[in-house]
């Protein structure tokens, strides 16, 4: 199955991929998607070395969340608005 991945802020600047399409096994969870992203490049490994939060379809999620085909997975650092 395919999902789309988006990155923001430091995570985006370090991995240098604002968005991409990722192919995963059916039933894969967020942790498996992150493991696969970490193997894409050294830049991705470095980006994921920091504290990274995840959102599935624009809702914050944990790494146990099971992904479905077409989902939008976002990765970003802790927020600093206000």
């Amino acid at each position, binding site marked *: 199955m395919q999902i789309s991945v*988006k990155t*923001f*802020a*430091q995570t985006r600047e370090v991995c240098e991929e604002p968005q991409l399409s990722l192919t995963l096994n059916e039933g894969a969870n967020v942790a498996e998607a992150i493991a696969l992203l970490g193997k894409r490049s050294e830049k991705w490994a470095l980006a994921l070395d920091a504290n990274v939060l995840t*959102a599935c379809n*624009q*809702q*914050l999620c944990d790494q146990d969340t099971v992904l479905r085909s077409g989902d939008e997975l*976002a990765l*970003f*650092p*802790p*927020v*600093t*608005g*206000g």
Partner: protein
Amino acid sequence: MFAVIQQQDFDQGALYKQLQQNAHNAAAGNTGAIVTFTGLVRDYNQSGNIDGIELEHYPGMTENALLSLVEQAVSRFSLTSAGAVHRVGRILNDEQIVWVGAAAPHRQAAFDAACFLMDMLKQSVPLWKKEFKGTDEKWVQVKATDDQAALKWMQKS
């Protein structure tokens, strides 16, 4: 209630009137207090002067997260209305960056709700701040005091 993410500056007076009108429409005659807060860009950080900041957001999620927070505040503090506006993009020193407002029958709920909105906004709304000085740029790191402020609301019933 309202929640807005925008690049342009905002008019506190217009937002106050919008909040007052929303509160009137929701419960005419029941608003005894309105508390508003406006955040500005300081011209310094922990290591010296800065020239300004830039705010990045996650289009869609940021708007929804801010609206959800406003809805939580209305429910939790029995407000007659509430609103929040946050700017994104490049913002210079001394400019306005964020506004929250809470309308309630009594002042304590309005004060508490404004604090809740700001403390939780800094923890749960996808916004990322970068500081500029000359050609240098630096992402702002999360402060432990901000996390503690949000945790305080999560622990209260």
